[in-house]
C-alpha cells in the first residue's frame, strides 16, 4: 500500500514537472465554422509567464481544406507553431506552415480532418503577457476568396478594353484612328493580368467542397460572377489582339514585303476567324489587307529564282492562297500557279528524298544482310527496287514556267542522279541474283575459295562484300581445318602442303582486313605443325625409349631406329627457311638428346640398378646392354659413363687411388654361352704419383669359381700391359690365386707410364657364362727376389 502511495505521489510530482503547460480554454474550442471566437480562461484571458511553454488543443475540422485562423496580440513576442502531433515537446515535431504573411497578429494554418486534434504550441514567451486571442475554423476557398475578392474585382476593372472605338469602326471611327502598336502592347499586358486572375479563381475552384456547389452561398455566387466576367473579357481580348496585331503588321510592313510575308499566317488566321468580328470590323480589315497581298507573288518568285539548292521551298504561298479563299475572294491566277509550283516542287523533292532514302535503305539492308542470301533473295530486291524506281518524280517537266529555275534544274539533276543510282543497284542486284545460286551451291560444298573467286570475278556486286565477308574467315578456317585434319591424321606432308597453300592464298574478299587474321592463323598452324611434329617426334622417341629401356638384346640396333628422327622433315615454313632450319636444328638436338643422352642414361641407370641387384639374373645380357647404351651415350654424367664403362669389358676401369680395392665386373666377350667362355677386364691405372717411374703391385681378388683350379691350370689366358704380354717367365711375378690367399692374384712390378693411360688387360676362360665380380687394388710394390 505504501509503495502504491509512493508511486502515485511520484507520478503526481512528475506530472507537475511537465515542460509544456496546457491552456484549456473555457468555453472549449469548437471546430464548427462559426466566425471568430475568443479564447477565454473562464471569463478571463490566459496569462502567460515569461519563458514558460504552453500548448492548446484545437479539434480537427469536419472536412478537409480548412483553415484554423488565429488572431493573437503580441504574436511577435511569442514563438508558436501548430502541430498535428504533440507529446510535451518530445519526439519529432511536425510544424504546420503558417500561411499568413502578417507578423504581428494573424496566423492561419491549413488543417483537415485526418487527426483528432491539433496543438497550438507556445514555445517561448518574451514577457509576461495576457493572451488576447480568438480563433476561427473556415474552409480555405472561402477564406482565400474572401481575402482576394476585392483585389480581383479591381484587377478586372483595370484590365478591361475600351470597346467603343472598336465597335464604331467604319462608322464612328476609322482604322487610322488606332494606334495599333500601342494597342498590341497594352492588350497583351491586360490579357496577362486577367489570366492571372483567372488562374487564382481556378485555384480556388479546385478546393471547392462539393457541398457549396449550386448553392446560394454569397461567396460562391460572387465567385461565379467574377469568373464569367474574366472569361468574357479574355475572349474579346484574344480576337482584338489578332486584329490589332495584323493591322499593326500591315502598317509597319508598308514598303517592306518581307515583313508583310511574315504577317501572312496571322492574316490567314484572322481571315479564317472572321466570324469573331463584327462585320464592319472585318470589312475594314479585309479591304486594307487585300490591297497589300498582290505584292507578295513577285517577292516569292524572286526568292525562288535565287534558290540554287534542292532544299524544300519554305514560303507562305499556301497561306496566301488560303487567305484569299478565307476572305471570300477569288484567288488570283499567279498566286495559284506559284503555289502549285511550290507544292509540286516540295512534293517531288520530298518524293525524291523519300525514294532515295528507301533505295538507300534497301541497299543498306542488302549490304547489312548478315546471312548469305537465298537463291530468290535478290529477285525480291530487284522487284522492290524496280517498283521504287517506277515511282520516281518526273522532275522539271511538271514545273511549268518555273521549270528553268535553278532549283528546278537542280531537282531534275538530283532525280537523274538517283535514277543512275537505281540503275547501278539494279545491275548489281541482277548480277547478284545470277550468281547467288552458284554461290549457294559452292557454300553447300564448302567451296569458300570458289565463292570468293566468283564474287571477285563478278563485276558490280561489291555490295555483297560485307554480306559475304565471312567467306574470308570460312576459307581460312576450312584450309586451317584441312591442315589440322592432316595433322590429326599424322599426314605431315599433307599438312605442310595445305599450310603452304594457305600461306600463299590471296583469294579473299577483303585481303587487307583478313590479312592479319590469315597471317595469325598461318602462324598458329605453323607453330602447331612445328610443335606437333616436335611433340609427336619426341613422344615417339620417348615411347620408344620407354618400350626399350629393358631391352637386352641387339641394343645397338635400337639406336638406328627411326624413332630418333623427326616424324617429318619440314621443307616449308611461313617463318622462313632460316628459322625453319633453326627450328629443325632444335628438334634434331632434342631428339639427339633423347637418343644420345636420355635413352642411354635412363636405360643405363635402370639396367645397372637391376644388374648390381642381382648380377646372376641375365647379368651378362644386362651388362652388354648397358655397355651398348654406353657406347651411344654422349652426355656428361660421369656416373652414367662410369656405369657404362663398368659393364663394358673393353672399357678400362680406372684405378686412381693406391691401396684401395676397387670392384669391377669381368664379363664374357664371346657372343653366347659356349664350353669355354672368354672373359676380359681392363684396368687403366692412373694413380697420381710424384714418382718419376710409378710402379705398382696389382692385386686381383678373383671369384672362387674362376680361380679354384688355378693350381692345376693357368686361370688366365693372357695378361697384357699396354698390349705387351706379361708372363711369369719374364721379370714379372704373377702369383697364383689359391684358397689360402683368398684367391688373390698379384702382378708385379707393373710400371706405369706417368700421366698416361696404362691399360692392364686380363683375359680368362670359364665354362660358365655369367658376370664375375673382381676386386682390384694397386699399391707401391716391394722389391721381390723372385
Amino acid at each position: 500500500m505504501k509503495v502504491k502511495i509512493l508511486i502515485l505521489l511520484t507520478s503526481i510530482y512528475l506530472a507537475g514537472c511537465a515542460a509544456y503547460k496546457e491552456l484549456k480554454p473555457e468555453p472549449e474550442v469548437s471546430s464548427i465554422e462559426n466566425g471568430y471566437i475568443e479564447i477565454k480562461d473562464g471569463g478571463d484571458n490566459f496569462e502567460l509567464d515569461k519563458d514558460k511553454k504552453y500548448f492548446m488543443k484545437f479539434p480537427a475540422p469536419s472536412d478537409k481544406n480548412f483553415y484554423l485562423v488565429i488572431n493573437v496580440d503580441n504574436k511577435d513576442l511569442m514563438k508558436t507553431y501548430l502541430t498535428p502531433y504533440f507529446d510535451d515537446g518530445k519526439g519529432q515535431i511536425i510544424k504546420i506552415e503558417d500561411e499568413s504573411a502578417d507578423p504581428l497578429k494573424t496566423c492561419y494554418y491549413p488543417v483537415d480532418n485526418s487527426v483528432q486534434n491539433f496543438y497550438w504550441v507556445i514555445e517561448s514567451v518574451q514577457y509576461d503577457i495576457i493572451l488576447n486571442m480568438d480563433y476561427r475554423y473556415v474552409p480555405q476557398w472561402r477564406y482565400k476568396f474572401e481575402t482576394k475578392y476585392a483585389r480581383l474585382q479591381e484587377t478586372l476593372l483595370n484590365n478591361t478594353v475600351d470597346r467603343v472605338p472598336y465597335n464604331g469602326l467604319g462608322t464612328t471611327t476609322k482604322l487610322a484612328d488606332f494606334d495599333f502598336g500601342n494597342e498590341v502592347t497594352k492588350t497583351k499586358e491586360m490579357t496577362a493580368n486577367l489570366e492571372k486572375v483567372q488562374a487564382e479563381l481556378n485555384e480556388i475552384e479546385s478546393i471547392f467542397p462539393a457541398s457549396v456547389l449550386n448553392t446560394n452561398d454569397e461567396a460562391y455566387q460572387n465567385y461565379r460572377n467574377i469568373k464569367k466576367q474574366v472569361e468574357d473579357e479574355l475572349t474579346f481580348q484574344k480576337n482584338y489582339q489578332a486584329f490589332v496585331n495584323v493591322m499593326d503588321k500591315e502598317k509597319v510592313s508598308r514598303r517592306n514585303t518581307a515583313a508583310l510575308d511574315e504577317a501572312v499566317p496571322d492574316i490567314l488566321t484572322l481571315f479564317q476567324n472572321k466570324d469573331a468580328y463584327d462585320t464592319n470590323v472585318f470589312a475594314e480589315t479585309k479591304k486594307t489587307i487585300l490591297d497589300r497581298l498582290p505584292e507578295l507573288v513577285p517577292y516569292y518568285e524572286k526568292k525562288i529564282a535565287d534558290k540554287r539548292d534542292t532544299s524544300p521551298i519554305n514560303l507562305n504561298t499556301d497561306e496566301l492562297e488560303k487567305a484569299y479563299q478565307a476572305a471570300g475572294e477569288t484567288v488570283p491566277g499567279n498566286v495559284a500557279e506559284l503555289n502549285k509550283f511550290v507544292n509540286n516542287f516540295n512534293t517531288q523533292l520530298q518524293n525524291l528524298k523519300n525514294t532515295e532514302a528507301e533505295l538507300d535503305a534497301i541497299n543498306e539492308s542488302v549490304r547489312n544482310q548478315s546471312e548469305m542470301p537465298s537463291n530468290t533473295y535478290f529477285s525480291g530486291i530487284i522487284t522492290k527496287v524496280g517498283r521504287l524506281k517506277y515511282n520516281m518524280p518526273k522532275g522539271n517537266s511538271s514545273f511549268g514556267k518555273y521549270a528553268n529555275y535553278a532549283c528546278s534544274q537542280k531537282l531534275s539533276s538530283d532525280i537523274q542522279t538517283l535514277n543512275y543510282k537505281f540503275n547501278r543497284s539494279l545491275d548489281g542486284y541482277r548480277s547478284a541474283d545470277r550468281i547467288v545460286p552458284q554461290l549457294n551451291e559452292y557454300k553447300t560444298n564448302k567451296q569458300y575459295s570458289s565463292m570468293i573467286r566468283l564474287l571477285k570475278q563478278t563485276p558490280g556486286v561489291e555490295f555483297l562484300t560485307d554480306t559475304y565477308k565471312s567467306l574470308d574467315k570460312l576459307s581460312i578456317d576450312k584450309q586451317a581445318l584441312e591442315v589440322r585434319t592432316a595433322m590429326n591424321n599424322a599426314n605431315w606432308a599433307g599438312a605442310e602442303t595445305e599450310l603452304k597453300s594457305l600461306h600463299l592464298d590471296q583469294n579473299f574478299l577483303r585481303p587487307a582486313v583478313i590479312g592479319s587474321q590469315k597471317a595469325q592463323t598461318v602462324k598458329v598452324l605453323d607453330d602447331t605443325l612445328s610443335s606437333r611434329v616436335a611433340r609427336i617426334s619426341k613422344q615417339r622417341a620417348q615411347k620408344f625409349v620407354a618400350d626399350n629401356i629393358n631391352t637386352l638384346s641387339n641394343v645397338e640396333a635400337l639406336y638406328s631406329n627411326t624413332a630418333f628422327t623427326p616424324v617429318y622433315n619440314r621443307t616449308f615454313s611461313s617463318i622462313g627457311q632460316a628459322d625453319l632450319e633453326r627450328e629443325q636444328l632444335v628438334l634434331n638436338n632434342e631428339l639427339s638428346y633423347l637418343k644420345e643422352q636420355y635413352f642411354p642414361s635412363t636405360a643405363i641407370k635402370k639396367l645397372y640398378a637391376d644388374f648390381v641387384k642381382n648380377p646372376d639374373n641375365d647379368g651378362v645380357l644386362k651388362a652388354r646392354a648397358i655397355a651398348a647404351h654406353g657406347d651411344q651415350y654422349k652426355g656428361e654424367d660421369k656416373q652414367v659413363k662410369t656405369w657404362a664403362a663398368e659393364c663394358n669389358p673393353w672399357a678400362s676401369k680406372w684405378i686412381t687411388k693406391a691401396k684401395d680395392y676397387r670392384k669391377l665386373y669381368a664379363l664374357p666377350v664371346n657372343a653366347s654361352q659356349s664350353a669355354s667362355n672368354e672373359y676380359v677386364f681392363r684396368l687403366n691405372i692412373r694413380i697420381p704419383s710424384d714418382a718419376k717411374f710409378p710402379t705398382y703391385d696389382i692385386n686381383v681378388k678373383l671369384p672362387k669359381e674362376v680361380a679354384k683350379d688355378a693350381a692345376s691350370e693357368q686361370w688366365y689366358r693372357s695378361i697384357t700391359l699396354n698390349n705387351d704380354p706379361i708372363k711369369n717367365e719374364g721379370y714379372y711375378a704373377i702369383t697364383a690365386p689359391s684358397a689360402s690367399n683368398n684367391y688373390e692374384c698379384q702382378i708385379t712390378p707393373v710400371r706405369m707410364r706417368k700421366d698416361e693411360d696404362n691399360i692392364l688387360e686380363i683375359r680368362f676362360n670359364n665354362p660358365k657364362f655369367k658376370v664375375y665380380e673382381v676386386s682390384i687394388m694397386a699399391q707401391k710394390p716391394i722389391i721381390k727376389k723372385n
Partner: protein
Amino acid sequence: MKKGLIIGAIVIVVAAVLFYLFWGPNLDGKIVIPYIAHQKPRIDPHLPSAVPIADKMDEVVFDGLFNVSANPSGITYEDGLGELVELDANNNVVVRLKPRKKWHESYSAAIEDDEVNVSEKEAVYFTAQDLNFTLKRIQRLGSLSPDYILVSQAVEGMTFSGPDDNNEIRFKFFDDRIWTEADIKEVLSFKILPHNSDINQAEYLNGTGPYLYTHATEENVLNYQVNPSGMAEIQQLKLQPFIDNSTYTTELKNGNINCLLSTPFGSLSPILSDSQDYFIKSNISTTLFAVLFNVERLSVTQRRELRNLIDNKKVLDRFYKVNTEQQKHIEDYKGNKDNYNDYLNYSIFPTSSYYVDNKVVIPMRERNSPDLSVLPDTVRIQTCLNYGFREELSELVQIMNDPALFGGKIKVTAVQNDEIKRGNYDAVLIAYSGYRSNFLYDLYEIFLREPDFSLHNINLITDSDGRGMRMVNERSFEGNKNFFRIDLASDHPERDNFVKLLDYIYGFMSTREVGDKQAYAQFLDELDQQMALGSWMFSLPSLAYFSTQFDDKSVDLYGVASQLSTIEKWREKVEK
C-alpha cells in the same frame, strides 16, 4: 763276303742296342743335371754365386718360412718352416713355426755302389733360434744379399718376437702398405740356416729342403737324396760334372742327363728336336756377355771409340749364324722365334731387364762411326774359357777376331784365369750369369767382383756412417779387385766419376726403395754413356730342356725364380 759284312754289321748294331738297353744309363727316379766340373757349386742361400746351378740349388736344399713355388697360374707360396697364422690390422704378422721340421743332419746316408739309403738319426729340429741366426746373418751381409733388401723393406728391425707357447712368432711389418699374403710370404721366403752354422762358411749343405746332400763320388757326381720328411716325388738328384758345356746337348741326347737348365747359345738344339723325347721351358734371360774396358789402359776417349767399334748386332748375327744354313734358332717364353735383336744390350742394364723394358733407363742405341785413330793399333781383349760358357765364348773369340768384322783392330785372346787376374788387357770378355731382370739386378757382380773366375769375391767394403747406416768405402774400387781395373787409390783423371760410379752402385744395390733404385739406374746408365765402361753386347736366351721322362705339366719355371724352386713337385711321366 759282302753279305757277310752286312750280317756282321747288323749283329753289331743289335748288340749295341741290347747293350744300351741293359747296361746303358738308367735315370729312372733321378734328376740329373750337368755342371762344369771345375766349377763345383758352393751353395750359399743368401749370396749370389757365379755358378748358376749353385743359386738354383738353394731351393733344393733349404726352406724358408715359406717357399716359393709355382703352378700353371703363377707363383705360389707354400708353407716351409712356418705357417701364416694371422695378419692383424696393425700389420703384425703371426707365423707359427713348424716344430717337427728336421735339419738334414737328422739323417744319415749309407752309400753302397750307386744305392743310397737314408736313415734317421738323432733329430735336430728347426727352432726360432735358427730363424734368428739367419736374420742376423742376412742383416750382416747387407746389400750383398738380396734377402737383406727383401726383409729390411718389410720387417721392422729385421727381427721378431716369440715364440710363444704355440710356437708362434710375431713380425711387425711396416705400415706403409697393405700387406697381402703373397707379399708376406715373399718377404719371409729367405732360406733358413741352422743356428750352429758359421756365419761365413764357404758353402752350406745342412738344410731342411726337399733334397739332402749325401755324398760326392770320385767322379765328383754330387748326390742328393730326397728328404724323408719332405714331399718330393723323385728320389734322387744328381749334379753330373762335365768338362764344359759343349757336350751338354749330346749328354742329354745320350741319356746321361735328363735335365738341361741352359743350352749352349740358349738356342734350340737340332739333336733335341724330338718332342717325344724332350720338352722345353723357356724363361727370361739370366746371362749376358759383355766386354768390360780396362780404364787403366784405355782413356775415356778410347773407350768411347771402342764402344763405337764393337757392333753387337754384327757379333750377334754371327753368333747365331743368322741367315746361314747353320743358323741357331731361338724361341723365347713369349713364343717369339729367332728374335735375336731383342737380346741386344745397350746399357749396363740388359734390354730384358725391368729398367730398360719399362724405359726407366733409355739406353743410347745409336753408335757413331768409330774414330780408330784414337785407339791403340790393336785392342787386346782377353777372355777365359774355363769357367762356363766355353762354347759361346769360343765362338765370340772367333767372331771378334774376324778381320772382316772389326778390320783386325780387335784381338781377342782366350787366356788362363791368372792372366786375367793380372789385368794385362785392354778389355775383358765375360759372361755374367744368373742376373735377375727384376729390381734386384746385381751390379756388384759386374763392378765389384774380383777378376778371378776361380773365386767369387765381391769386393764391397762398407763403413758405418755413425748414424746406424752403412756407406760404401772407396777401397771397394781397387785396381786388381775389379775387371775394369778401377782404382780409387790412384790419381786417375776420371777419379771423380769413379767415386760417383761407386756411390751410384752402392746406392742402387743397398736401397730398399723402388723409386731410388730407378733413379740410381738412370744415373748409372747416364754415367756409363759418359764413361763408356764397356760394351754390353747381348743376353743369352734362357732355354731349358727336359727329358720326357718327366711330366712336363709338373715342371713350372717362372721368371727370375729359381728353375728348381718347384723341384719338389716334379714327377715322372706315367706311361699309359
